[in-house]
C-alpha cells in the first residue's frame, strides 16, 4: 500500500503550516498507537502537548515567545507565555528529507549552504511564512554557534517583534555567571514591559518546581544508562531535546517518570533493547542524528550495540535550591544556560568538550566511540581530533569519524550511513 503523504504534500504546496503539520502528524501517530501499542502512548504525549499548545496559544489568549539557544524558559512560562523552541521544528521535520529540504533550500537563498541545518530549517520556515502562527516576541542567545549568531538576529529583524538577545560568555566562571544573572534581570524587565505584568514569584516558583522535577528525573534516567546492560534504547536519547522547551511543564516530568519506570523494569527483568543482548556500548561524540535516529535501532539490532550516551549532553541538569532567593535562582538559571546541551560541551573552549566526553567514558563505560559529525557543527569538527586523541590515549578506543547532516537527510542516504557504521563494526570493533 502506498504511503499516505497528504500532509507532507500539503506542506510542500504551502497549504498546510508546519505547526498544523506537527499537530496532525502526532494525532495520527497516536491514533495508530492506540490500536497497536497503547502501552507506549506516553512516548508521544509530550509531542502532542507541545505542538498543540503552540498552535493554539493565540486561541487560548496566550502570547508566543519564539526562542533560539539557551534562554530562561522558566521565566517565559512564569509570565504565562508559551515558549516556542526553534530547534524542535527542524528536529521534527528532519526524518522527512523532502520537507526539510524545502525549508533548507529557501534559507540557502540568504545564508551559505554550510550553515547548520537546524538554523536553515527554521529560517527557511520563516522565509516561506509557514509557521502558521505569528511570534509575539523573540528571545535568543549568542550561542551555540556562528550559524545561530547570524540567523537569530536576522530572524529577529524579519519578525519585527520585541526581541531580546543574551550574550553568553565564552568561558564558564564566576564573572560569566554573574554577567548572565545581570542579563536575566534585564530580561525580566523586558518581559514585564512586553506582557504588561510584573513577574509573580509564586508562579515562578511553580515553574521552578516543575523544572526541578524534570531534571531530577532526567538525571535518574541518565543514571540508568550506566547499568549493564543499558536498559533504555538509544532512540530515547532523542526525546531529551524536548526538555529545552518543556522542562517547566508537568507533562515533561510525566514523560520522564514513565521512561524511568520502563528502564527500572527492564533492569529488573534483565532485558536489553538489543534483541540478541548487549554486546557493545556506544558513545556518540556529537549531536543526535535526528534525520536518521533509526541508525541507533539498526546498531542495536545488527551489532548488539546500544548507544549509552551522546555528547549532546542531557545528563544532570541544574536544580533550583533556594527558591525564595531570587539571586540564587537566577544564578541557577545562568548555570542552566551555560550548561545547556550543545553549549556546555561545544560552544566554549574545547576544554569543556573534553570534560564532557571524558565524563561519558568514565561513567557510562562505552567501548565504541563514534563521531557522527553534523557538518553544520564546524566548531565541533575543529575540536574532534583533540577529543578523539584523548579517547584513544586514555581509554584505548579508536573513534570512527563519519560526516552526516543531522537535519538534512539528503546529505547521505541511510544505506551510506549504515554501510559506514557496519564497516567500522566489522573491521575495527569486532576485529
Amino acid at each position: 500500500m502506498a504511503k499516505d503523504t497528504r500532509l507532507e504534500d500539503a506542506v510542500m504546496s504551502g497549504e498546510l503550516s508546519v505547526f498544523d503539520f506537527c499537530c496532525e502528524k502526532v494525532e495520527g501517530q497516536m491514533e495508530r498507537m492506540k490500536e497497536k501499542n497503547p502501552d507506549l502512548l506516553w512516548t508521544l504525549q509530550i509531542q502532542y502537548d507541545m505542538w498543540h499548545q503552540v498552535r493554539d496559544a493565540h486561541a487560548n489568549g496566550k502570547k508566543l515567545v519564539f526562542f533560539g539557544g539557551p534562554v530562561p524558559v522558566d521565566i517565559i512560562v512564569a509570565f504565562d507565555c508559551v515558549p516556542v523552541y526553534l530547534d524542535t521544528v527542524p528536529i521534527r521535520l528532519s526524518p522527512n528529507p523532502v520537507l526539510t529540504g524545502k525549508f533548507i533550500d529557501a534559507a540557502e537563498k540568504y545564508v551559505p549552504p554550510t550553515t547548520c541545518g537546524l538554523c536553515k530549517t527554521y529560517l527557511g520556515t520563516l522565509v516561506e511564512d509557514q509557521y502558521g502562527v505569528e511570534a509575539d516576541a523573540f528571545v535568543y542567545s549568542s550561542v551555540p554557534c556562528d550559524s545561530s549568531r547570524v540567523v537569530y538576529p536576522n530572524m529577529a529583524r524579519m519578525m519585527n517583534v520585541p526581541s531580546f538577545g543574551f550574550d553568553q560568555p565564552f568561558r564558564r566562571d564566576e564573572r560569566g555567571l554573574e554577567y548572565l544573572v545581570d542579563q536575566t534581570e534585564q530580561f525580566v524587565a523586558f518581559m514585564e514591559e512586553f506582557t504588561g505584568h510584573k513577574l509573580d514569584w509564586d508562579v515562578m516558583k511553580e515553574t521552578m518546581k516543575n523544572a526541578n522535577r524534570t531534571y531530577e528525573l532526567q538525571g535518574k534516567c541518565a543514571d540508568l544508562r550506566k547499568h549493564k546492560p543499558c536498559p533504555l534504547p538509544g532512540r530515547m536519547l532523542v526525546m531529551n531535546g524536548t526538555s529545552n522547551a518543556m522542562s517547566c511543564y508537568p507533562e515533561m516530568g510525566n514523560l520522564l517518570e514513565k521512561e524511568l519506570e520502563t528502564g527500572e523494569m527492564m533492569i529488573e527483568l534483565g532485558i536489553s533493547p538489543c534483541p540478541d543482548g548487549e554486546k557493545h556500548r556506544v558513545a556518540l561524540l556529537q549531536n543526535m542524528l535526528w534525520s536518521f535516529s533509526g541508525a541507533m535501532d539498526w546498531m542495536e539490532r545488527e551489532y548488539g550495540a546500544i548507544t549509552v550516551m551522546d555528547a549532546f549532553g542531557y545528563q544532570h541538569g541544574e536544580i533550583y535550591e533556594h527558591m525564595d532567593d531570587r539571586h540564587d535562582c537566577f544564578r541557577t538559571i545562568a548555570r542552566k544556560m551555560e550548561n545547556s546541551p550543545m553549549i556546555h560541551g561545544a560552544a566554549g573552549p574545547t576544554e569543556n568538550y573534553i570534560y564532557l566526553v571524558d565524563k561519558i567514558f568514565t561513567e557510562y563505560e562505552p567501548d565504541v566511540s563514534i563521531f557522527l559529525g553534523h557538518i553544520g557543527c564546524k566548531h565541533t569538527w575543529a575540536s574532534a581530533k583533540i577529543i578523539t586523541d584523548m579517547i584513544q590515549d586514555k581509554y584505548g578506543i579508536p573513534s570512527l569519524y563519519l560526516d552526516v547532516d543531522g537535519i538534512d537527510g539528503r546529505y547521505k542516504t541511510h544505506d551510506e550511513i549504515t554501510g559506514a557504521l557496519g564497516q567500522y563494526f566489522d573491521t575495527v570493533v569486532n576485529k
Partner: protein
Amino acid sequence: MDYQKLFEPEVTGEAIKAWRGQGKKALGFICCHVPVEILHALEIMPVRLRATGCAESPDGDAWMSTFSCSYARGMLQYWLSGKYALDGIVTSDGCMMSARCFDNAKHVDEKNNIGKFFFQIGAPRKTGSLELRYYINELKDLIEKLEELSGNKLTDEKLKASIAKYNEARELMRQVLELRKAENPVISGEDALAIALKSCDYTVEEFIALLKAFLADAKNRVPITDKRARLMIVGSALDNPGYLKVIEDKGGLFVADALCYGSRPFNHVMDVDEKDVLGSVAKYYLTRIVCPRMMDNREELQKWVTETAKEYRVDGVVYEKMQYCECWGGESMFLEPMLKDAGIPILTVEREEHLANAGQLAIRAEAFIEMIEKED
C-alpha cells in the same frame, strides 16, 4: 626612507626577530578585540596572526578538519610549522573558527610541553554598559597576565602613550585611504591591502615610519587611469592582496573595503577619557564596527558599508565569502538589499584562503566589470 616593503605582503618575521633579539616578548593575537595598545604599553610586540600565502595546511587540516574555514586552518598551519617565532598567543573569542585555531595551538603546545603563553579573553557580542563592564574586567585579567609575562607594570601614562602611537598610525592610514577617493587614485586596492597587512607584523613605530615615507612620496606616484570600474570589497577575513590583483587585472580598481585586515581597524581614532583610560580602550574595541560577530550593531555595519560605497563613488561591490565563514556568509541577507536599494550592484564570490580559483574569479570579475562600467 625606502617604503617599498610596505607592498610586500608575505609574513617575514624580520621585525619580530629584531624585537625579540632585544630580549623582549612578542605575542601573536587573533581577531580584532585584543587591544594592541595594552601589549605595546607593556613592551610586548603585538603580531596579528594571518595566513597570507599559505597554499596548503596539512597540519591545520588534521587538527581542525576540512569542515573548518581555510583561513583559520592556515593560521594554525603557520603556527604549528614555526612560521611565527613568537612567545605565545592572545585571543578573544571572535568567531568559532578562530577560537578553535587558538584551542588547537594551545593543545599542541601543552601536549608537547612547549610552554608558550596562551591567554583568551571574552569579548561580548553586545555593546551596552553591562557588556562594557564585563569586557573591562576581562581586560584587567589580560593586563595581569601580561604584566607577569613582560615583567613590566601598566600605568595610565604608558597606556596613553601607546594609544597616541596607534592613533598616529590610524590617522596616517586614514590619509592613505583618503588617496583612494581621487578620480584617479595613486594606489591600487592590492597595494592598499598590502600596506594594511604590514601593520600585522611590524612594530607600530616602524609602520608609522613607512607610512610617513609613503605619504611624502604619494604625490609623485603615477595616477591609475586605465581602470574601468571603481570597486569596494567586503566580506570574510582576506589577507591575500593577490586576490584583489586578479580582479584589478580585469579592469577593476578597489577604492574602498570593509575588511578586518584592510581599512576596518583604522577607521576611527580612539578617544581617551583621562579619568578612565582603560574604559576608553574597552569602549573603542567593543563599539567599533569590524565584523558581523556582534549581535546588536549589524545594521550599523551594513549602513556603514553602504555609506562608504557611496562616499567612495564605487560602481560595484565585490562580496567575498570564505567557505565555512557563517558570520559574513549570512550578512548578505540584509546587506544585499540595502546596497541594491542604493543602486549599487554586487558580485558575490566564494573563496578559500589560497587562490585556487583565480581563472574562474577573473572571468566572473571581467563580466561584472563589463556590466557596471560607465561609458565616458
